[in-house]
């Protein structure tokens, strides 16, 4: 996957960049266009989504190579591929990379790209804030990984970085500083994006798109944003304390000064557990779109799917201490958290059975996307059930910190989250890029991944129950660990192979895209609004903002149900779909300031670690960008959009007349004038 959008995107004649005729030299507002530079200033939610996705896949490779190193080291007893020191860094960075730099941004890619499309909007509520989120995220990701080069090694404290082991005394390299500051930067990005997307979901829905008509993917993503919104400040506090402890000697976690090491654990896991649902809910959303499409049935129990999602989101707040069953929090707390944990199985089970009920009686067509989706349900169930075995606190005293846990969470994270998002990649690929991924290679990809995945993580159940601890860089022969570790390593390389197949698939499909029939707006006969517009999606999304009359709006534009309850076609895709040829639709103007501001943040980070002057420079950049942003009109007065088409066009023929030309997009812009107030406030976070 590469950033540059070549052939497929240029279906319509792009407006030429007009740098040349601009009067005022260097600091002019970017105009938008299709060159590579325009990606830097874009505020288009689709491009931002693509950038999130691309970067996430890149970091998947990084985290994956780290995982392969781990597996190589553990393939046989007394491994010597990595020393103990490097091993500790690699597994820590593997966890951090996969969670914060791969799966969260990949979910963010889906959120950015599809929330506006699914609710019938032209963009998110705050387009520039959206760009800001991405750039901050990217700069944080890069910052975090520069620890390898300038920090004396990556963080070596595990992804939950328990204190006091993560204090300067026990982890003197700068790795943990990078962890503490890097995650704060990433958190800021996610927080801004969460606010933005929440407002988008609540406020930017097309007419008629009530909450209970929103597609499930959007719903799950919305719940995810709420989880992010409330969970991120908690880890921010923890990281803040850690940073102060490490950089300025504050005794927050110093046992000698009377501090309590468990404070960190509580703060981390109050964030950490909602975080795991942040990881899984987007995948649930994807699965809930894919399965109905390929079962030719609406999602079974829509309301129950939504409410179970909300229930999972809420219950996720009351269970965090199940990660601390053996830390000595006392039997009362243990019992309470053990109980609360178990009952999360209930709403999750509701979801599983509703998916099965959707498939029940359907016409299941096993495209690659469908295969991935069904595999998600199956694999997640295994991971969820091992989760239930942890939730029984006394039993967990035998399981915790062993490979049994590693097995659990890879089954839910990889088997649920990653495989689920892969279903999404195959499903929406034609929508985003305008060509289909090859199904034959896709099948190879799927089966290799599924087999490799089970070979890798299945044996870890056994290893864990046999007593293999996690986070050990070597183990001795003779405990019965040899065979299964070798199997797991082989499995990991199968996953890597499947990823190679995926990359080949992307490359080949793209090369041959021109010679194959274009997928059209709706290649899968799908159900939600994004399929009613051309593939790839034109810059303005919708020619006319759709008026929504029910769930699965797009499907209902194609099909009706006759008196016998039989499905009949009422319109072909060509008839029902929008053409994407509207011109002069009013779109928010691009801006460089989000990028500029994002550059300042890692400078502050380096400054805190190495030299405060750098932090001052970084802060100046941030502040100056912020104010420049505030002074920059939302609408570029020099840009020539309009062509007189603005008015009436968006109104949609049938929707009659509202009070004034208050189309959705216009509202975006007036609202955005005040954005910096919100930004300024969120600055307080970092």
């Amino acid at each position, binding site marked *: 996957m590469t950033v540059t959008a070549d052939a497929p995107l240029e279906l319509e004649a792009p407006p030429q960049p007009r740098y040349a005729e601009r009067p005022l030299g260097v600091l002019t507002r970017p105009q938008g266009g299709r060159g590579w530079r325009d990606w830097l200033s874009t505020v288009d939610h689709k491009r931002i989504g693509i950038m999130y996705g691309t970067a996430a896949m890149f970091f998947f490779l990084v985290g994956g190579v780290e995982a392969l190193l781990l597996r190589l080291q553990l393939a046989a007893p007394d491994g010597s591929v990595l020393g103990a020191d490097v091993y500790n860094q690699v597994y820590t960075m593997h966890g951090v990379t996969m969670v914060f730099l791969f799966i969260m941004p990949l979910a963010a890619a889906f959120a950015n790209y599809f929330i506006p499309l699914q609710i019938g909007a032209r963009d998110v*509520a705050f387009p520039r804030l959206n760009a800001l989120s991405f750039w901050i995220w990217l700069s944080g990701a890069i910052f975090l990984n520069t620890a390898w080069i300038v920090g004396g090694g990556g963080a070596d404290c595990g992804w939950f970085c328990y204190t006091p082991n993560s204090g300067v005394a026990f982890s003197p390299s700068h790795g943990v500083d990078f962890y503490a500051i890097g995650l704060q930067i990433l958190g800021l990005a996610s927080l801004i994006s*969460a*606010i933005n997307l929440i*407002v988008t979901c*609540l406020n930017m829905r*097309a*007419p*008629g798109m*009530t909450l*209970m*008509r929103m597609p499930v993917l959007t719903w799950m993503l919305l719940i995810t944003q709420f989880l992010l*919104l*409330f969970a991120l*400040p908690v880890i*921010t506090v923890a990281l803040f*304390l850690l940073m102060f402890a490490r950089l*300025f000697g*504050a*005794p*927050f976690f110093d046992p000698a*000064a*009377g*501090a*309590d090491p468990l404070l960190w654990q509580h703060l981390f896991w109050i964030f950490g557990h909602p975080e795991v649902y942040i990881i899984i809910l987007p995948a649930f959303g994807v699965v809930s779109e894919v399965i109905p499409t390929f079962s030719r049935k*609406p999602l079974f129990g829509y*309301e129950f799917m939504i409410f179970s999602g909300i229930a999972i989101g809420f219950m996720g707040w009351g269970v965090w201490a199940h990660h601390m069953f053996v830390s000595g929090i006392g039997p009362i707390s243990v019992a309470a958290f053990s109980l609360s944990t178990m009952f999360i199985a209930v709403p999750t089970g509701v979801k599983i059975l509703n998916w099965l009920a959707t498939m029940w009686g359907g016409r299941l067509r096993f495209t690659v996307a469908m295969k991935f989706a069904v595999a998600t349900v199956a694999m997640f169930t295994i991971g969820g059930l091992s989760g239930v075995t942890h939730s029984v606190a006394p039993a967990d005293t035998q399981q915790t910190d062993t490979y049994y846990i590693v097995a659990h969470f890879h089954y839910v994270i990889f088997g649920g989250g990653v495989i689920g998002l892969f279903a999404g990649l195959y499903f929406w690929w034609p929508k985003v890029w305008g060509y289909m991924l090859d199904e034959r290679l896709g099948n190879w990809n799927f089966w290799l991944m599924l087999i490799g995945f089970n070979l890798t993580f299945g044996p870890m159940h056994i290893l864990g129950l046999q007593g293999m601890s996690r986070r050990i860089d070597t183990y001795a022969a003779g405990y019965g660990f040899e065979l299964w570790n070798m199997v797991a390593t082989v499995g990991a390389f199968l996953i890597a192979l499947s990823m190679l197949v995926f990359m080949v698939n992307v490359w080949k499909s793209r090369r041959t895209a021109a010679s194959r029939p274009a997928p059209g707006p709706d290649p899968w006969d799908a159900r939600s609004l994004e399929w009613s517009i051309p593939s790839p999606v034109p810059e303005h999304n919708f020619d*006319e903002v*759709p*008026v*929504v*009359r*029910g*769930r699965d709006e797009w499907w*209902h*534009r194609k099909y009706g149900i006759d008196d016998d309850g039989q499905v009949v076609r*009422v*319109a072909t895709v060509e008839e029902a779909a929008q053409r994407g040829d509207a011109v002069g639709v009013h779109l928010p103007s691009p801006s460089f300031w989000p990028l500029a501001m994002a550059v300042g943040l890692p400078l502050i980070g380096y400054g805190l670690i190495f030299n405060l002057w750098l932090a001052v420079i970084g802060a100046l950049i941030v502040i100056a960008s912020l104010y420049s942003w*505030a002074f920059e009109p939302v609408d570029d007065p020099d840009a020539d959009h309009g062509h007189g088409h603005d008015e009436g066009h*968006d*109104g*949609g023929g*049938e*929707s*009659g*007349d*509202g009070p004034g030309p*208050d189309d959705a997009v216009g*509202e975006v812009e007036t*609202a*955005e004038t*005040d*954005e910096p*107030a*919100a930004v*300024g*406030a*969120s*600055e*307080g*976070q970092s």
Partner: protein
Amino acid sequence: MTAAAAPAELDHGTSGAGGAAGHGGDHGPSTGISHVKLAMWVFLGSECLLFGGLISTYLLYKTRANGRTLPTDVFDIPFTSVSSFVLLMSSLTMVLALSGVSRGDDTAGRAWLLATALLGAVFVGGQVYEFTSFVREGVAFTTNPASAAFFTLTGFHGVHVSLGIVMLMSLFVSSVKGKLTRNNSETVEIVGLYWHFVDIVWIFIFTVIYLIPAD
């Protein structure tokens, strides 16, 4: 537009309302409220957990002295009461500023904006004074877990107030330049929300951290 071909009533949603007809084709925000204001409230919801975390840290640590002086030993309640009072009154001036601006009474708006900023500055000045005096009396940032938690919490709050002051001053400047009118009084409202939030955080801090005796 072929969408018209769609069957008439397909609403499986639980809410019958909200169909196209009911809305008269309005494409504005689906909830009829402004994006920014909603965003600010959402953000404030998030801030609750941020300050909550810092407050809890302090509550957990407030008696951990490491054999040295605790913040509670050096509290100057009379002075902090005045500070709290100042911040509380700044909330009043903030509302009056908003009321002035949205009435179109620029003079009043400006006066109250400036007053709010000044009261905020007095509060921060008082905090600087408080911090200095604590340090002189033997309670520094790294003295013990209690002091570190105290300074982090109140310092963090102070930074929030300071950011608020800068925002207020920016508003004041744009008002003087004539760029802040009744039409964009919402900006004042947004800053006001932030400001009041910082105030209620202090209401909480003042009671829970200063007034409730540490046993």
